[in-house]
Structure formats: structure tokens, C-alpha cells
């Protein structure tokens, strides 16, 4: 190992904390300073749109996975400190109140929700990213509003809609595309998910644009681009996130929808990036990726930490099969791999009408993705096969054999 004595991690969410733990597990004994803009440890995010929002869990149960072990990591943990700039060549991190020198630095600043209006414009309009966001929405839901309007039928929007329905609230979902979750799941499967929401009582409006919000102090409705008005007592906007890279202007790092890294998560000598903020070429898929999943924050945080400690010739490419899950009503949706730009999609087990199936995706000669609904076993088995680089034909042949393995 090369001489490394000062590591700085910018961001104490899942990728950052996992990196800190990985550094210690690897035997690194120098200082680890973690700079976090929030005033306390960011929560584990998946429950924020589900168990915490529903009221089933109190906020403390959404502690990050490593919270119980964090004292063992021996961190110099600084909350409420927003990184202001970075000098890659000089190996200095600019803070509001001074400069921090480093031997190695990890950028793990995550992403922030897109807003449709200024957050302070009207009460009752929310985004969902932090625990504060979650509790503000929950408080509005506790007041038993007449109607919740969710803008955006992506995963956050879909999970919020499902949670609101579980609380017995009336929900309208507004989506600009012609299919729910279309951007991630494609038209066929997105259509199935949209039907599930409608069957559960969601008023799903597709292909509609939001023009603005009506109300005075508090939101009263959402104006659509066809001139119509949807009454709303609470609005949750889930229209995606943007990586937090503004502070890196002039740093010497390349930013292009994320911090651009090499295949080993290195953005510059001594500087790596991980989690929602990182863009890197995934060699397994032959394409540049920026992945916003929980599992990737964990894996890439660990990989980037190992990269920062690696000596010459020791670096290994980070080439995972991305994976995520989403729970909506009684359905578990899981996606392994990469399906955007696929040449073919085929349901290989179960069927869409029974809403329990596995769909496989081909790009060129290879199996590049699988999407399962209530089929966790098969998705995970395929994830392993995708990592091994299995061809489409071999994957189908294995299925035909109906294998004892399956």
C-alpha cells in the first residue's frame, strides 16, 4: 500500500459511510474525515417512501445500516459542513471555514430532487429525499387530506402513491409520459405497473404536463397543460434527481451528469467518486452509467475505497450488475442489469396478466437485464448469470431445460 495518511470523504450517506467502513476493514489506520452538509447522519432512504411515510415505523428505525458500528470506524465526522470547492492538483478541499488537505478524497455527495417550483412557494408541495421531507409529508397525510397528487410516476412517485392508498387516501398520479415507470421499465411492464395502481384505486393520468400550482399560502390544485385543474391538498413531486456537483466547478474534475470517473471509479489522481453522483464506464455492459440505487451506493462506496488505497497496478474495474427493488402494494419489482436501449424483451417465466413474471432483455447477443415481479429468486439467479456474461441463447436454453437449478 502506498503511503496514505489523510482520507477525506465528502458525504456521509450510504456510499460515504460504506467507504469509511471499507477503509478500516482494509487495515487503513490514518485519519478519515467525513464532511456532511446535513446536520446529522442521513437516514437509510428506502423506508422513507414506505414504512416511515406510512407511519408504520418511527424515524429512528430508518437508521443507516452501519449506524451501530460507526463509532468503531474512528471518524472525524463533521456535520453541517457543506464542501465549497475542490482543488484536485493541490489536494485541498475548500470548506466554508477553511481548507482541508488530503492524500485521498472520495466524492459521495449524492443527488438532489428536481423541483417544479420554488420549495417555499406554497405550503403542501413536497419533494421526498430527506427524513425532514418525509416527516413533512407524513404530517400533511396525518391531517387526512381529501386528495394527494403525486407528480411523476417514477419509483418515488409510485411508492408514495401506494403508501398513500394504504393509508386510505385518495390519490391522483400525473405523468408526462404515456406509461407509468416507462423510463425505467419500458412500455409493456410499465403498463402492468400502471394497471396495478389503477386496480388499487389510484387515479392515474398519463401523458399530462404540469403547468403550475394553484392556491395562496397553501396548495389547492395542480394546473395541467390542457388548462384543467386537479384539486390537491398535498402534492408530492417525484420527477427525478440531479447529481450534487455544483461545488466542483473549477475543481479540475470532469462533470457530465455526474462526476466522470474511469472504469475503476477514479476521477483524478487520488480522487474517486461513488454512489448517485458518480458516472463511470461499466465494462460489463460497455457503457457509461450513473446508478441511483441503494445497492450500488453500498457496492461502489466499497469499490471506490479500495481504489483509493490501491497501489500501482492493483486497481480493478468496477463492473457490477446494477440491481434494485421497489415494493408497491403486494408486488415486489426487481431489476437486475441494464434494460435501457435493449433490442428485445421477452417474458420468460410467468405472465404479465398474473403479475408474477420474469422478463429478460437482450442487447446484441447477450442477456443484459432481467425484470421480475414477485420473482426474487429468479432475478437473483439471472443477476449472477449476467455477471458471468451469459449469452441470450444460452440463457433461453437453460430456461428450456427447466433446470433443477431453477
Amino acid at each position, binding site marked *: 500500500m502506498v503511503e496514505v495518511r489523510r482520507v477525506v470523504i465528502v458525504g456521509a450517506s450510504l456510499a460515504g459511510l460504506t467507504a469509511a467502513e471499507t477503509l478500516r476493514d482494509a487495515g487503513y489506520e490514518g485519519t478519515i474525515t467525513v464532511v456532511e452538509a446535513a446536520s446529522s447522519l442521513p437516514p437509510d432512504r428506502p423506508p422513507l417512501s414506505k414504512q416511515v411515510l406510512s407511519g408504520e415505523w418511527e424515524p429512528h428505525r430508518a437508521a443507516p*445500516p452501519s449506524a451501530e458500528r460507526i463509532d468503531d470506524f474512528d471518524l472525524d465526522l463533521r456535520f453541517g459542513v457543506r464542501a465549497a470547492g475542490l482543488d484536485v492538483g493541490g489536494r485541498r478541499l475548500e470548506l466554508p471555514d477553511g481548507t482541508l488537505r488530503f492524500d485521498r478524497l472520495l466524492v459521495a455527495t449524492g443527488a438532489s430532487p428536481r423541483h417544479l417550483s420554488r420549495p417555499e412557494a406554497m405550503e403542501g408541495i413536497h419533494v421526498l429525499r430527506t427524513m425532514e421531507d418525509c416527516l413533512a409529508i407524513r404530517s400533511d397525510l396525518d391531517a387526512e387530506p381529501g386528495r394527494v397528487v403525486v407528480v411523476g410516476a417514477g419509483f418515488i412517485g409510485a411508492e408514495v402513491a401506494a403508501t398513500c392508498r394504504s393509508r386510505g387516501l385518495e390519490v391522483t398520479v400525473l405523468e408526462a409520459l404515456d406509461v407509468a415507470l416507462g423510463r425505467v421499465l419500458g412500455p409493456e411492464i410499465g403498463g402492468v405497473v400502471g394497471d396495478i395502481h389503477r386496480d388499487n384505486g389510484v387515479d392515474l393520468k398519463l401523458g399530462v404536463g404540469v403547468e403550475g400550482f394553484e392556491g395562496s399560502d397553501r396548495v389547492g390544485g395542480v394546473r395541467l397543460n390542457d388548462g384543467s385543474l386537479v384539486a390537491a391538498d398535498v402534492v408530492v413531486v417525484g420527477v427525478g434527481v440531479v447529481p450534487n456537483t455544483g461545488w466542483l466547478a473549477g475543481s479540475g474534475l470532469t462533470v457530465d451528469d455526474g462526476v466522470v470517473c474511469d472504469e475503476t471509479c477514479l476521477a483524478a489522481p487520488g480522487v474517486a467518486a461513488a454512489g448517485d453522483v458518480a458516472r463511470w464506464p461499466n465494462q460489463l455492459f460497455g457503457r457509461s452509467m450513473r446508478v441511483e440505487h*441503494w445497492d450500488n451506493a*453500498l457496492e461502489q462506496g466499497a469499490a471506490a475505497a479500495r481504489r483509493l488505497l490501491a497501489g500501482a497496478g492493483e486497481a480493478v474495474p468496477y463492473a457490477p450488475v446494477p440491481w434494485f*427493488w421497489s*415494493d408497491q402494494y403486494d408486488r415486489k419489482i426487481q431489476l437486475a442489469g441494464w434494460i435501457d436501449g435493449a433490442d428485445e424483451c421477452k417474458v420468460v417465466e410467468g405472465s404479465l396478466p398474473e403479475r408474477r413474471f420474469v422478463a429478460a432483455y437482450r442487447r446484441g447477443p447477450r442477456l443484459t437485464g432481467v425484470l421480475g415481479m414477485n420473482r*426474487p*429468486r429468479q432475478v*437473483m439467479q439471472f443477476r449472477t448469470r449476467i455477471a458471468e456474461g451469459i449469452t441470450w441463447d444460452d440463457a433461453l436454453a437453460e430456461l428450456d431445460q427447466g433446470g433443477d437449478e431453477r
Partner: protein
Amino acid sequence: MKVVVDYDLCESNAVCMGILPEVFEVRDDDFLYVLQENPPEDLRPKVEECARRCPKQAISVED
């Protein structure tokens, strides 16, 4: 080493099965089965990886 699963937390995401199918199996009934409650010591790093990467933090390792 003893593998303990909190089945109140487990949601059968099957991440553990992807890492260590010799120990963890999610079957077609969508439930997780622990195939070896006391796996051999050489599997400890992988079992610990399963515990870390479980989205529900439902797996723990007792010495």
C-alpha cells in the same frame, strides 16, 4: 458462527442468495431458507457481506 435471520424484517429480496447460495435460498414460495445455520468458518467473509448488503439488514452473524 451462527447465521440468524430476522424474518420480521426479511422481505426476500434474495441479495444474500446472490452472494452465497450455499447458505441462503429464496424458494419459489418467495420465502428465505437458511440452508446452513452454522456455516464453516471459511465462509465468514461472505456471510458478513450478506449481512452488510441485505437491504433490510435482516441478517446477523453470531460468533
